[in-house]
C-alpha cells in the first residue's frame, strides 16, 4: 500500500482507529472534519478499511426476512410514481389468459422460429398477447447466449410511445428487459443476473414513454402478457 508521504505515523494510527471505529465520538467528529479536505488522509483510511475487511469473512451470511426488503423498498420508493392503478389486478387476469394460451404459444413460436433453432440448444418461447389480439409478440429465448428474439405479429406502439418488455417472477416486481425495437423483429440480450429466472417467468409488455419507463417500474397500461415455456 502506498501512502501520502506528508502524513505522519500518528495520522496512520488515527486512520486505523477511525477505520476500526475505536475513536471516541468527539475524536471521531474531529477526524471526520479533517477527512473532508484531506485526500491523503482519506487514502490512509481506505487502505485500512481494505486491509481489515477480510476479518468479516468469518461472519456467515444470514438471509434477512423478506419483509425487510419489502419495507426498504416502500421506504425508498413508495412516494414516487407507482405503477398505473390496477396494474396488478389486470395482471392476475392476464396471468390466467397467459396460461390458457400456453400450448398455442409453444406451437406457434416453435413454428415461427424453427429455422433458427440449432439442435440441442436450450430454447424457450413465449407468446405475449393481448386478449383481443390488438398486440401479439412472439419471443424466443436462447438460454445459451441470453439472446431474446422478438417478433411483433400484430399491433404496435401508440404514436409517440414505446413498448417495454418486462420479466415477472412470481409476485416479484417486474424487471425491465428493455424497450422493444421499433421494427417488427429484433433482439434483446437478457442481463446475466436475470437469465436463471427466465425458465419460470412471465413476460409482459407495457405502454411507456419513448426510451422506456423513467422509474424502473411499469408506468403505463399493461398491453400483453405471456408465460415463458420450454420447447
Amino acid at each position: 500500500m502506498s501512502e501520502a508521504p506528508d502524513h505522519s505515523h500518528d495520522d496512520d494510527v488515527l486512520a486505523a482507529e477511525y477505520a476500526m471505529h475505536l475513536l471516541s465520538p468527539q475524536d471521531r467528529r474531529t477526524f471526520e472534519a479533517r477527512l473532508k479536505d484531506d485526500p491523503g488522509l482519506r487514502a490512509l483510511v481506505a487502505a485500512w478499511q481494505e486491509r481489515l475487511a477480510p476479518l468479516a469473512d468469518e461472519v456467515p451470511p444470514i438471509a434477512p426476512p423478506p419483509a425487510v426488503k419489502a419495507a426498504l423498498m416502500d421506504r425508498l420508493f413508495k412516494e414516487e410514481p407507482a405503477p398505473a392503478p390496477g396494474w396488478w389486478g389486470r395482471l392476475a387476469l392476464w396471468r390466467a389468459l397467459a396460461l390458457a394460451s400456453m400450448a398455442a404459444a409453444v406451437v406457434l413460436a416453435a413454428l415461427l422460429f424453427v429455422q433458427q433453432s440449432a439442435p440441442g440448444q436450450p430454447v424457450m418461447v413465449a407468446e405475449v398477447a393481448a386478449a383481443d389480439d390488438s398486440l401479439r409478440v412472439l419471443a424466443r429465448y436462447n438460454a445459451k447466449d441470453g439472446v431474446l428474439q422478438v417478433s411483433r405479429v400484430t399491433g404496435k406502439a401508440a404514436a409517440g410511445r414505446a413498448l417495454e418488455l418486462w420479466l415477472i417472477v412470481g409476485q416479484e416486481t417486474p424487471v425491465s428487459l428493455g424497450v422493444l425495437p421499433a421494427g417488427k423483429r429484433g433482439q434483446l440480450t437478457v442481463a446475466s443476473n436475470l437469465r436463471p429466472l427466465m425458465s419460470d417467468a412471465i413476460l409482459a409488455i407495457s405502454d411507456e414513454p419513448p426510451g422506456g419507463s423513467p422509474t424502473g417500474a411499469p408506468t403505463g397500461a399493461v398491453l400483453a402478457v405471456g408465460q415463458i415455456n420450454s420447447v
Partner: protein
Amino acid sequence: MDTGIIEKMIANVGLGDRSAFSSLYDATSAKLFGVALRVLNDRADAEDVLQEVFVKIWHNADRYAANGLSPMTWLITIARNTAIDRLRARKAPSEGEEAVVSLPDPGPTPEAAAVAASERARLDGCLQELGDDQAGAVRGAYLDGETYQSLAELYDVPLNTMRTWLRRSLMKLKECLSR
C-alpha cells in the same frame, strides 16, 4: 460473489436504477445482515440497521467510484459502521439475549472464494503473528464493535495499556500484510 458484478450493480444503483438496487440487495443483504447481526446480536436491531444500510447505499452509490474501495469493502464498511453506531447508541448493553439462529451459508462463487481465501489466509497468518490475545482484541473491535474500554475490561488490563496494545497490533498487522 463476483466483484465485477457487484461493482456494476453499484454503478447502476448510482444512476438511480431500481432493479439494479434490488439485485444488489439480493446479492449482498445476507452478508451485510450477518455483519450487522454479529455486532448487534439482536435480530430486530440488525433488521433496522440493514434497512438503514441500504438507504445509505441507495443515496451514496453515485459517489462510490471516488472512494477507491473494492465493492465488498465499501458495503461491509457501511454495514459495520451503521451497526456499531447503533450499538453505541443503545442505552444499556444487551445481555442474556437469545442466541441468534443462523441459516445455512449459501457460500461465495468458487472464484470469489479463492480470492477471498488467499486474502483471508494472509490476514490469518498475520493475526497469528500477533499472538492470541492481541488478535482476539483486533477481532473483537472489528467484528463485535468492542471499544478500548470494553476490551480493557475483557482482557483485564488498564485502559492505556489496551490502547497501546491495540495500536501496536494494528501497525504490526499492516507491516506483516505489506511484506
